[in-house]
Every structure is written in structure tokens, then in C-alpha cells.
């Protein structure tokens, strides 16, 4: 275990450096720079103004100097400065982190629990009406574009029924605090979390059903049945546990992308998450910010991968860390 972690740590450093290198040069391939974007948005510019902006952003330096500066910053755990937003990148990311974690955590949690339950049900009643209904619903949500589901939920629950707010994270105009604020955020969270959750839910339900059906066909299940173990116990103890591996893998992938947020859902519901921040940074050529978000995301992916490996060994003792 310790050797595994030690070896992983060494790999992590190399992987992250590689990612930083690729990210940096890949992003600099994009045509146009932040000064041009700013000048473009202004609708007017002078060469002097552009030059002042480039000097301010450090874009007047040769690319390798910019890269060495970036690496130097990374080594000292400094993600750099977003000149466009006039704030340190780490501060910008931290500002958005709570909203992102809240939305992604709720959506993935809801999807995991509900999706696994539905998949479990479908697998136990395979071929019957319950299975057909669950499979169709899951397919429907999986195939429908997330932004369309979001807009429809807004139209029905916000505009027509007036139960929930259209978007945002709080009712700023109401100046709430304490428990009232928590309730207000929860109300704002419902639609985006459900929208995103329904999409993920479909994945978990389909995965769970397929994995369980596969395990049902294996010898040890037949043996258990022959032994006279009750079907419920077989499902819970023998099938479900063995079917969890692909679920854990998928969960790992989704947790890895948690920092990237969900651009579409955040956009539709004006949710102040990291996805929107990264998306805007790309169009604005705010490369320091984008590199910062990408770097943090890659750290999370690497760490989640290690965690997933460890969970495998817990779920299935036959798997060894090496």
C-alpha cells in the first residue's frame, strides 16, 4: 500500500508537469490574444492602448519567458494572476468553488443513489414492465440535450407554475441571512441539480442494470440459487456488490470532472460555477485563468484515480495494488 502511494506520488508529479506543458503550448496555439479580445470588446483601440495592455498582461515577453514564469509560479503553488479580471487566479477559483461543489455534489449524489436504485430494480425485473419503463426513461434523459431539459424545467416550474426561481444562486435583492439564506440557496439549487442529475442518473441506471445482469449469469450466482439462498439476498449480497465496480469507475470519472463544472447547466441556470468561468476564459484568451482551472482539474483527476484504485481493493479483495 505504502509503496503504491509512494510510486503514485512520483508519477503524479511527472503527469502534472506534462499536463502543464501541453496545456500551456496548446492554449497558445489559439489565434488572437487577450489584448485583442479586450480591444475588440471596446469597439475602438489605438496601437498605444494595445501595447499598454500587452505590457500589463506580460504578453510582450517571448513565449519561453512566459512559460518559465508560469512553471516558476506553479512550483511555488502560485496559479498566477488574471489580468483581465484583476484578481489572482487562485482567488477566482476559490470564489467559484463552493457553488461548483454544491451543484456537482448534489447532482452526482442524487444521480448515484436514484440511478443505482432504478438500475437495481430494472435488473431484478429484467424484461418486465418496470424494466421497460425504467430503461425508456433512462434512455430519454440520456439522449435529451441537457440545456433543453433545463429550459423546459424553467418554463414549467419557474415561469408557468412560479414555484422556483429562474436562475442564479440566491435572491440577492432580498438580503437574506442565516437559515433563510440556506433555504433560498436550496430553492435555487433544485432545478440545476435535477437537470444535471437526470442526465447522470440515466448513466448510472443503465450501467447498474447491465452490470447486474452480467453478474446474474455467473456461476457463483447459480450456485447460490441452487443452495436455496433467497432471491433478495442473492441480489443484495452477491450481485449488487460485484456489480459496483463499473459504477465506481464511472463515479471516479465524474468526480474527476467536478472542477470543470457543467458549462451548459451553469449557463442555463446562471449558476456561478467554475465551468462558466473556464468557458469564458477560453473566449477571452485569459490563459492564466484557464491554465489554472485546467491544472486544478488535472490534480483532481489524478487524485480521484488513485482513490478509485483503493476503493477497488475494498470492494473486491481479489484486486491487488501493483
Amino acid at each position, binding site marked *: 500500500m505504502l509503496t503504491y502511494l509512494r510510486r503514485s506520488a512520483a508519477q503524479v508529479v511527472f503527469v502534472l508537469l506534462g499536463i502543464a506543458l501541453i496545456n500551456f503550448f496548446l492554449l497558445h496555439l489559439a489565434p488572437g490574444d487577450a489584448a485583442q479580445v479586450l480591444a475588440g470588446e471596446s469597439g475602438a483601440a489605438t496601437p498605444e492602448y494595445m501595447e499598454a495592455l500587452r505590457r*500589463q498582461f506580460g504578453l510582450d515577453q517571448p513565449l519561453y519567458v512566459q512559460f518559465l514564469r508560469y512553471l516558476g509560479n506553479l512550483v511555488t503553488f502560485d496559479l498566477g494572476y488574471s489580468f483581465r479580471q484583476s484578481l489572482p487566479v487562485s482567488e477566482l477559483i476559490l470564489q467559484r468553488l463552493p457553488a461548483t461543489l454544491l451543484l456537482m455534489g448534489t447532482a452526482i449524489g442524487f444521480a448515484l443513489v436514484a440511478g443505482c436504485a432504478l438500475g437495481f430494480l430494472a435488473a431484478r425485473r429484467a424484461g418486465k414492465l418496470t424494466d421497460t419503463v425504467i430503461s425508456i426513461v433512462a434512455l430519454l434523459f440520456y439522449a435529451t440535450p441537457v440545456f433543453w431539459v433545463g429550459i423546459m424545467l424553467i418554463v414549467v416550474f419557474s415561469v408557468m407554475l412560479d414555484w422556483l426561481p429562474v436562475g*442564479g444562486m440566491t435572491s440577492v435583492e432580498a438580503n437574506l441571512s442565516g437559515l433563510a439564506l440556506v433555504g433560498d440557496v436550496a430553492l435555487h439549487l433544485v432545478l440545476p441539480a435535477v437537470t444535471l442529475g437526470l442526465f447522470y442518473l440515466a448513466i448510472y441506471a443503465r450501467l447498474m442494470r447491465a452490470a447486474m445482469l452480467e453478474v446474474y449469469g455467473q456461476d457463483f450466482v447459480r450456485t447460490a440459487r441452487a443452495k436455496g439462498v433467497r432471491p433478495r439476498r442473492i441480489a443484495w449480497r452477491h450481485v449488487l456488490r460485484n456489480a459496483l465496480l463499473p459504477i465506481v469507475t464511472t463515479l471516479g470519472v465524474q468526480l474527476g470532472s467536478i472542477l470543470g463544472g457543467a458549462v451548459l447547466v451553469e449557463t442555463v441556470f446562471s449558476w456561478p460555477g467554475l465551468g462558466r468561468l473556464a468557458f469564458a476564459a477560453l473566449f477571452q484568451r485569459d490563459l492564466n485563468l484557464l491554465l489554472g482551472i485546467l491544472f486544478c482539474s488535472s490534480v483532481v483527476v489524478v487524485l480521484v484515480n488513485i482513490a478509485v484504485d483503493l476503493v477497488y481493493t475494498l470492494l473486491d479483495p481479489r484486486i491487488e495494488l501493483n
Partner: protein
Amino acid sequence: MAAAAAMTAAVVVGVLPGPQGSAVAQEARQGGTLSIILQPEPVTLTPSTNMAQPTQVVAGNIFDGLVTYDFELKPKPALAERWEVAPDGLTITFHLRGGVKWHDGQPFSAADVKWSLENVWKTIHPRNKSLFENVTQVDTPDDATVILRLSKPSLPILSVLNGVGAPILPKHLYEGTDVLNNPYNNKPVGTGPFVFKEWKRGEYVKLTRNPDYWEAGKPHLDRLLFRMIPDAAARAAAIEKGEIQYAPYNPVPFRDAERLAKLPRLKVDTRGYEWLSPLLYLDFNVENQHLKDVRVRRAIAHAIDRAALAKIVWFGYAKPAISPVPSSLVTFHNAKLPQYPFDVKKAEALLDEAGFKRDANGVRFTLTHDFLPYGDDYRRTGEFLKQALKRVGIEVTIRSQDSAAFIKRVYVDRDFDFAISYNNAFPDPQIGVVRAFWSGWLGTGTPWTNGSGYRNAKADALIQEAGVEGDPAKRIAQFNEFQDIVLGDVPSLPLLELNFFSVYSADLEGIVEQGDQVYSSLKNARFVDAPKGN
């Protein structure tokens, strides 16, 4: 002039708001929070170095200018109570309002104006530099008087003196600092009717009422809440539901605007953008092997039905443009110009004459079109052009990219055939029009300048003469000749005069009061009965 301005002014759906409307049973009331759409998120909240729309929409409420502009684009007193321009145009004197305070309590004085002119308008301000460069000295004989002394006249100065056009920054917070990096850029201190409170990135900007505002009883509202809602459909839903009560700058697609305009609770209004006078135009790359022939450019001009473009693609929120100087610039606009009426036969004849015959497939040649990546309206304009040109035998390939790539392609690399773009003309052609034609911009890689690559010594000379001409009548004559030349050569084809629109709640009054309203303050706005959800 008033009649002409009124004619160009507006398509207003619903009843006009205004003082006359408030006389009815409803009682106007003080206070309340106005929720406003702000899209996209601004870069900074100080208008000194960034002139993008969201920055200015917020900043207009925080910063007062020397003047504001009425619907006829005449300056009205604000921080300057009155002003005089010497007959030779070489001295401009402003008499400032007394007793005005910055939001931090410091007194506002002539020194702030002088400092801002010398350190912002003349140096880093992207639009004003050329207008103020002939100001050689600024005298402040007392705290309430500013005298600009010029080496050559610069009459366009009088068209940019509102809060965002010539932003006055507090000298005591900016002096000796790097203006671009000053922390107050993002927590601005102005003299305007609303005070900056909070900017929560990705969510909102909050302003509150300035209790010490110089105009007694103003502003009426307690709070302005600018909310960022990135999705157009969600914006439409928030407006429809009443969560948002004011949404300037084409907040929703035209189709939604048509639908919202029919709701009795909402108004759609195209007034308040007169100061900007946006113009949609088509830049030909005059170095292109086909487009370098003026007959080809004229043929394309004849091949485009601009009235249909305005009606079909822009849902009537535009009208055909016949000159690079929009008709809202009443004194400068010249209607007696070379015209390019929609005439397919003439277009074909010109192309034949230029030697580009149709081949076996009916194609004369192929061009690539780059549209301004500011949304579907521009993409659809490109599709409209593609169809129009196909009729006369020109095959068009549409290419899309994001705005950074577009700017680089057109203005830096000049790697394009023809592109559509838009510019705000502003009240004087010197500010927003001539930059598209002056050859001095070529080679500088500056966005929104001479995109076509046009060089004409006569046009260049007229542009420079008009810039320093002190006699208004002579300037009009110079711009008439300028329009004549550039429309004859047509390196850049004016397509449409755009009518931007705002959507707002019908229970608001005083929301559109002047020609620079969208970039000015909402100090006159108030609710006439209880707003929803408050």
C-alpha cells in the same frame, strides 16, 4: 432637425413612458430595487480604459460626465453647468457645478477634470486620444472652471463628454498610480447617482442610492442590481416572470422580443441608443484578386436587398443604410450620394463588364465570408448574403470563428475576402466612422479600424482636415465630400442602421429619458406601483 430626429428615433411598442404617463391614477413612488440584465460579465467597472458595453452600462450610473446628450444628441448640463467654445475653436471653457462630492466624501473639483484629461483621455483612452491630442494646456483658474487650450480646433470633443465618453476619475485615488492596475477600477468611486456596493463575479453587481447626490430628490430607486444571466432563453424567462425589470442591449433574440412586446406587463423600446448610432457594414478586402475591382464591389452592393435583410434577418430592428454616416447624425448624413439600389440585372452586368463570366455551373468566382461572431443575427446575415450573391453567380463559403480569431484574421493577418462587422458611429463621424477608411490605421493591427485595406489620398486628407476644422459648416462640407468618395469607391458597404432594443417592465417610468440613456444613469427611473417580487 427635431422632426428628423424624431423620425429616426424609435419603434416603440406599447405606450410611451414619460412624465405625461404618470398623471394617471397610479402614484409614482420612491425606493425599490431594480433588477437589470448585464450581459456579458464586465471586465472592469471603470470606463476609463474599457469601453465594452457591460462596463459602460454599469459605470454610467456611478460616474457623472460633464454633460449628457438628449435625443437630438445636443449636450445637456451635468457636472458642467455651462460651457463656451471660443469662435476660433481654440479655447473651450467649462463651468462646473459646485458642491459635488465623490462617493468617498471628497469634494469634486476642476483638478479632477484636468487630471483625467491629461492622464486618461489624452493617453490611454482608446477612443479619445485623437480627439484630445491637440489640447496643449488645461487651466483651472478656480475649482469650478476648466479651460481647454488647443493648438488646433477639435469640435468632436463636444460629442463625447458624458460619463463614459470622457470619464472623470477621482484624482485623489488615481494620482501617481498605474491607471490600468488601480484597484479602484473594480470598486469604482464616482460622483454619480448610485454608489458601488459589491461585485460578486458570475452573479451580480450591486449599486445603492447616493444620498448626497447633487440633484435633489434623485435618484428615486434604492438599489440597482445588475444580474449576469448568460443564457438567452433564461434571460427571456427571467424578464417574462418579472425577476428582471430592465434589460438593455438586445437582451433576448428578436423572436422573443416580438413575443415579450405583446405582453401588457412589458415594453420593448428602441430609444436611448441614439448616441451610439450602430451601423452594420460589410468590409471588402480590396487586395483580393476579385474585390480589388471597384465594379465587383459595386455589383455586390447592387445584389443585396438591404430592405429584405432588415426585415427578415433583423426582424425590422434595423433599416437600410445608404451611407457610412448614419441618418441619425442628422447634420453630417448626406442623402444625396451614390446609391446602390437592389438591382440584380445591374449587378450581373457589372460583373460581366469586370470580366468575371459565369462558368458551366453558373459560378463566376468563389469568396469566403467571415461574420462577426456576436451571435446568430450576424451568422444569419452571412447566410442571407450567401444567398443574395449566389443569384448573381458568386459562390460564398461561410466561415465561423470566435471573436479573438475574427479580430486577428481581419485586422491583423488580413486573411479574409469579405467580412461583416458593426461600429458605433457616435454623434460625430470623426469618432466612429472615419476610422474604417483612414489609411493611417493600416499595418497597425488595431481592431475595428480600416479593415478593407482602403487607401485614398483625397479621403485621408478630408478626414484629417475635418478633424482640426473649427468651422462647423466647413466640416459638414468636408464630410459630404468624404461620403461621396468612399461610397463611390465602396471599400466598405454600409448595410443597416441597427436599432438596439431594451425590454422593461411597464410599471417603470423615466427609464429612457435621453439619447445616451443606455450608457447613462437611471436616476430618473422609478416604479409607478409595487414591483413584482419585492
